[in-house]
Every structure is written in structure tokens, then in C-alpha cells.
């Protein structure tokens, strides 16, 4: 999945869930006060399921989840690491 598709999917998820159709890619969802605790966990599981990555303790920095663009970057970075690991074993 390329970055554009990841951004669209994450954008649709966040705009829908947070009732914020105008949410821009770089808008900070924490600063806007939009995230509840239950939703924070749902977001993690959504990202894991949708993009096949594992979010671990060290990924739990707020900067990784604060905007559509940040999540897109996290997915790209995690996918690259997973891809490299697959390359190493094959």
C-alpha cells in the first residue's frame, strides 16, 4: 500500500470517528482534544489490522499518533522495517 492510500484510509478513519470532516493531514488531534482513551486504543488496533504492522511500547510516542500525516509516517517506517526483516530472512 503506498503512502497516498495509507493517508486516505487513516484520514477517512479519523475524520469519521472524530466527527471532523475538515481535519487536515497535519492537524494535531491531541491538541484539538479529540481523542478519548478508548479511541486511542481503537486507533492502535485499526492501524495494526489495516496495515499489518505491530505497534509496540516504543511506538507509543504521542508524535506518532498526533495527526494523519504522523500515522502515515509511522506506518511507512514500520512497513520498511518489516520489509527489510523479510528481505534478511529470504
Amino acid at each position: 500500500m503506498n503512502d497516498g492510500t495509507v493517508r486516505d484510509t487513516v484520514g477517512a478513519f479519523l475524520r469519521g470517528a472524530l466527527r471532523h470532516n475538515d481535519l487536515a493531514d497535519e492537524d494535531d488531534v491531541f491538541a484539538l482534544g479529540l481523542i478519548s482513551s478508548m479511541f486511542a486504543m481503537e486507533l492502535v488496533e485499526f492501524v495494526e489490522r489495516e496495515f499489518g504492522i505491530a505497534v509496540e511500547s516504543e511506538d507509543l510516542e504521542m508524535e506518532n499518533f498526533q495527526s494523519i500525516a504522523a500515522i502515515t509516517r509511522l506506518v511507512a517506517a514500520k512497513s520498511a522495517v518489516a520489509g527489510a526483516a523479510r528481505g534478511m530472512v529470504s
Partner: protein
Amino acid sequence: MSTVRPKGVSRRELGLSARQLALEAEYQAFAMQEVAPLAEQIDRTEEIPRPLVDRLASAGMLRGAAFDEPPDPIAHGLRHEALAYASASVEGLVNVHLMVTEALERWGTALQRRRWVPELATGARLAALAITEPEVGSDASSVRTRARAAGRGYVLDGRKKWITCGQIADVFLVLARCEEGPATFLVPRDAPGLRIEPIRGLLGCRGYMLAELHLDSCAVPADHLLGAVGAGFSHVATTALCAGRVNLAWACVGVGQACLDAALRHAGERRQFGHAIEDFELVQRILTRMIARIDAAFLLCLRASHERASGGAAAASMEAAIAKYFASTTLTRVASDALQLHGALGCSAEVPLQRYFRDAKIMELIEGTTQILETMIARQASSRARVASALGACAGNGREQSASL
């Protein structure tokens, strides 16, 4: 008291596998032989005897999901149901222990998992969850306990109240607030600056062995921080609470089933006006109401556990909340009905009905009060509906819609 549970309706047709049914039989046998004979004593003395904790450990009742092959949230649920049928207090001890285990399994670093999870699984250490404070209950993200980095670790100051298993736990998962946001810490019982004060005399679940924790410049090493600073409530505590909610819902079914079995037995044996009271239509109505409610709660638990198995804990958070909400509110009615059917006997110490009745009320307060769940479920349902429609629109633009939302 009999150590054999009455045979209920067969659950095979509800989709339980042969393995799950075998495990259920094993859990029920353990609960009836080891736990049920002590249930009244635990309620009276407000203590779970240490040998019973050891037997729970050696029977594998304290093992978290990481030890399952394959993972089986339904089997876990059946374990909580079986234990609570015998004693809600004992189930409570197991539940908080497994809530902490689940948070560790999910958010612990590899090192933390290696260090803590095996010890928790064998019962070498018992764990408890410390979120609530004297001034902060439902609004758990606003805890006042402070944590600050100091030297090679953290120092915690504050108080935690109503902590299940607090009198005997070896380690506490404590939710505190750092300057940068909420964080959770593993605080060993012997940490300098931790003082534990037992709380006694509760209405129900009297064997929970509650305690208040006083953290006065309580120092823990840096590697006792679980998860990132900032994610303590939203991710770590929430993971524990989601797990606890499903377990507790199953526990409500267990207590409810115990109420029903007692009510059916009594209604068949007790004679008035020349008839067994089960022949009276008004009694039949009460029994029918109880049966339907417990069946419905059981099915909601099954769904929540099934969702956890297929979609993950957070994806199943709404199903877990619904199961806990329905099962706990229904249990207070079922326990009241069962007591009513027993007449004066139900209020006496001769039968466990008054214990069930008292324990039931507690279930509506913990792991999210009824009112908090009523708020949470509606909000989550609205959010899911919006996400489904947004992703549907996105799918129209060339991507597959997520099946699980």
C-alpha cells in the same frame, strides 16, 4: 454443599468446541471442589486463604493469554464463569491479576515481559491494579498521584483506594501522572515509601481483600515504567480495563447461574398451599425471567470473547462494555429474584443467596460503573457508525472497506 454443578443446557450447539467444553468441565470441577467449599468462610472472614491461592496457581488459573496455544478468549471466559459460580471474591482476585498480566503482555518491552510474565503466570507474584483514588473514581484519566523522574528511576506520591487484592498482592500496576502525561508503573510491595492499609467491611465481594495504598516518595527503577509516558491511561490502563470487563461479564453469568440453580432447586422442593411453589404461575414467571436474562448475558459474553479472538481487544471494547453492562445490571435483578423465591431462608446464613445478592451490587460499580458504560457504549456506537460510513466512502474511491468496523 454439593461439589457438583447441576447439568445445565448443553452448550455444544452454541458453537463451543470440544476443547472448550472439556476445559469448561475442568474449570467447573476445580471451582466446585477447591473454591466452593470455602466460599462462605471467605465471605465471613474477608480473606482468601493462601493455600487456595497456591492451588489456583498450580491449576493454571493465574496464567495469561500468552501461555495459550492457540489463544482462546472464550476458554478464558469460561474460567471466570466457573470460578464466580463458586465465589465472586476468588474470581475477583484472578481477574485483577490477569488484567495486569494482559497489560504487561501487550505493552511490556521484551525484557519486561521476560522478567514479569512467567512469575505472574506461576503465581510466584500476585498482581493488582491501582487506578482509583480517594478523590478520583470514574474520571480515571484525572488521577492525582504524581510521578517524577529522579536519579535512575521515578518517585511516586499519592494515594490509591479500593484496590482489589491490595492486602496480598506482590506488585501493583499504578496509574500516575508525570508532567508529560499519565504513566503506569510496576510498584513492588516492598518498594520504599509504599504503605498498605487494609479496607474491611464492604457490602459484597468481601474476599476481595481491598486496600488503600499510600505512596510517599515511593521510588521505583526506570525499567518499572510500563508503556510510554503519556500512554498510561489511554493504552496501558485501558488494555487492562477492557480485559477486566469481559472477565467480569463472564463472572456475572457465573453468579447468575448459581442464583438460578438455587432458585430452581428451591422452587421444586418448597411446598406451600399443598403444591411445590414451582407450580405457581407467578413463580414460573420469575424463573423464566431469570433464565432468559442469564442466557442473554451468556450469549453477549460469548460474542465479546469471540470478537476479542477475531478482532483484537480494542476492536472488541464495545462488545466487552455491552456484555459487562448487561450482565451486571441483569445480575442484580436475577439475584434479587432468587432471593425473593427463597423467602426468609434467602436472607439467612443457611443458604448463599444473600452473598450472591451482595456480590451482585459490586459488579455494577467496578470496571466502569453502569452509568459510565451507558455513556461509553452510545458514544462508541456513534463513532463506529461514522467510521463505517467514512471508510465506505473511501472504499468507493478505490479501497476495500474494513470488514471489522
